[in-house]
């Protein structure tokens, strides 16, 4: 990065921390610290909800995925608007009228303390571990591309976020999210515009889309009924609906955002704001990735996107072999370019077929480089022992990791081709995306720890000053924990996948418990609790013994909890519903 890029990045980070501290002043009690005094307007909460969902790795990963796999990932968001409407009609009024701090607090009033403790504990476990991954993943990408120390990147990103969240709580989170979301939107439009501008003038925008279409990058609507095929229209609509219902309805990191609304109307509007904007925004992000894909037909990409791996390849493999693969790669790229230009001019089927052959040959040369790296690794040393024990990998259904450098595509493009100053700004966008997710997660972890555990089991009435102090200490604890996990993540290897899988096992099940609470006045506490365990077990069984795509896991979990909960209630013969 140039000096101007560095200046932009440093000014951005300093300014956002200063703004967060300024915006978060005036907290006197935990209502202020955790729910921003319940005084926020819909547009601020709506932008915060959006910013919390867009993590840095979503931003760089989604564009990378569009490059390698096309836009079909978009279907995951098709269920979101419907989920928002359902939540506005059901859970949001319940939470708001109950004046709760956490979603799980509501479950104690509706069922019993055991259900509240179990669900809140599951949230703390999964979110507490995943917050480290939220911090680690973008830090890894940026450290490789910018040549920074991984630890320094983690501590800069984590430390600056922790500073303003400890001081200002949810007010700081929401107001900085508003700014960060504006920066993210600006960054998306900027990258989109630059990608179009840098395609050669002989290739029109329509030509670019024609090439992308023939390469399968614009395939979105797959109507296959298969449960194992990824990202079909139905898995997006149904699985995506359940995923979004679980995320926005039962995950404290989101619930806490909209509970900060100054009225029920404001809270509902914040979610509907997302319902209108989310799909178009994801479309634009994915289309940017597709345009980068077309762009690299006319500009030579690196042999491997991960600079660290490329340097390692040059270090461990014989120079003559690396030169041979590089030469194949460049020849294949030139052939693909010619085929793309030819197809863009003619749009003939025969030229489409020639393009596919050239594209396959090009992909094969990248495969040669990866194979060479693996081969050289095998000669250099015995493989390192797996971080996850074999028995655990078997139970969780983990497969050996395949080589992937998808997350490096978009940052490589930014740092190589964006004009000076703008590259620093887009790196600031990646920082913004990471910090906005991290801030919301830290604040929600502190809230669940404080309200669902500390205030219940240790000191129910400690006074405003004491409670505010403990809330800040808990924020600091979760921030330090996130940094610690992120610093160790490189050594954890596939344990990161364990963390991600662990979350997917109970997300839908918790949704099932909330569905029981809201939709069935007769459901019993025992039904909810044992239904939750049955739901988690079912998802584990489906994930381990079948090839069903992960978007269906939440459907399985929620439906099993609901059915088992109702059955146990009926068998119990009575309701133990509380009137709280």
């Amino acid at each position, binding site marked *: 990065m140039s000096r101007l890029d560095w200046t932009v990045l440093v000014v951005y980070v300093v300014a956002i921390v200063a703004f967060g501290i300024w915006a978060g002043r005036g907290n006197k009690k935990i209502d202020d610290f955790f729910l921003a005094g319940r005084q926020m307007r819909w547009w601020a909460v709506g932008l915060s909800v959006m910013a919390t969902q867009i993590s840095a790795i979503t931003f760089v990963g989604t564009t990378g995925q569009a490059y390698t796999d096309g*836009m079909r990932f*978009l279907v995951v968001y*098709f269920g979101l*608007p*419907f989920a*928002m*409407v359902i939540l*506005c*009609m059901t859970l949001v*009024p*319940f939470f*708001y*009228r*109950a004046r709760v701090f956490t979603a799980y607090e*509501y479950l104690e*009033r*509706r069922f019993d303390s055991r259900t509240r403790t179990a669900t809140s504990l599951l949230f703390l476990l999964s979110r507490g571990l995943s917050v480290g991954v939220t911090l680690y993943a973008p830090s890894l990408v940026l450290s490789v591309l910018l040549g920074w120390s991984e630890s320094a990147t983690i501590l800069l990103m984590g430390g600056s976020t922790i500073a303003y969240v400890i001081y200002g709580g949810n007010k700081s989170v929401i107001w900085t999210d508003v700014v960060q979301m504006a920066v993210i939107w600006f960054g998306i439009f900027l990258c989109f515009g630059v990608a179009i501008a840098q395609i050669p003038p002989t290739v029109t925008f*329509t*030509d670019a*889309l*024609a090439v992308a*279409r023939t390469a399968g990058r*614009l*395939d*979105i*609507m797959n109507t296959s009924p298969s449960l194992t095929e990824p990202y079909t229209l139905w898995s997006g609509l149904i699985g995506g609906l359940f995923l979004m219902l679980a995320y926005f309805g039962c995950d404290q990191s989101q619930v806490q955002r909209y509970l900060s609304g*100054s*009225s*029920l*109307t*404001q809270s*509902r*509007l914040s979610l*509907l704001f997302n*319902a*209108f904007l989310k*799909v*178009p925004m994801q*479309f634009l992000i994915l289309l940017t990735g597709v345009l980068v894909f077309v762009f690299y037909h006319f500009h030579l990409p690196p042999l491997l996107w991960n600079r660290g791996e490329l340097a390692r390849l040059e270090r461990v493999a014989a120079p003559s072999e690396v030169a041979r693969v590089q030469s194949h790669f460049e020849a294949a790229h030139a052939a693909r370019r010619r085929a793309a230009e030819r197809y863009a001019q003619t*749009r003939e089927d025969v030229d489409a077929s020639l393009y596919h052959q050239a594209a396959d040959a090009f992909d094969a040369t990248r495969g040669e480089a990866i194979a060479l790296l693996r081969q050289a690794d095998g000669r250099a040393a015995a493989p390192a022992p797996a971080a996850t024990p074999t028995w655990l990998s078997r139970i969780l259904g983990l497969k050996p990791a395949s080589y992937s450098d998808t997350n490096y595509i978009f940052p490589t493009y930014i740092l190589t081709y964006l004009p000076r100053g703008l590259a620093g700004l887009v790196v600031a966008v990646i920082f913004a995306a990471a910090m906005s997710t991290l801030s919301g997660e830290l604040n929600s972890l502190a809230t669940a720890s404080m309200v669902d555990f500390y205030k219940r089991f240790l000191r129910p009435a400690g006074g405003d000053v004491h409670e505010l102090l403990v809330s800040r200490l808990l924020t600091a604890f979760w921030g330090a924990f996130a940094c610690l996990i992120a610093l160790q993540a490189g050594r954890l290897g596939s344990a990161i996948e364990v963390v991600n899988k662990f979350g997917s096992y109970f997300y839908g099940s918790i949704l099932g418990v909330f569905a029981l609470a*809201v939709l069935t*006045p007769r459901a019993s506490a025992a039904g909810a609790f044992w239904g939750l365990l049955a739901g988690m077990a079912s998802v584990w069984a489906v994930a381990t013994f079948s090839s069903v795509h992960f978007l269906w896991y939440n459907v399985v979990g929620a439906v099993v909890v609901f059915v088992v909960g109702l059955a146990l209630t009926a068998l119990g013969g009575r309701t133990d*519903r*509380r*009137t*709280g």
Partner: protein
Amino acid sequence: MDPSSLPPDPDEEEPVPIFRTWPRIYAAVVVCTLVTMALIALFSSWDY
């Protein structure tokens, strides 16, 4: 806690902007989403 026994929030009567009622704004979200999906399907299958 019986949901129906929960007291309505005083601010619940705050007017719904533009659409005036909740059913209308929900319908607008659903219609807008369906139109967006139709446009995406068109974009995806267009013969450029």
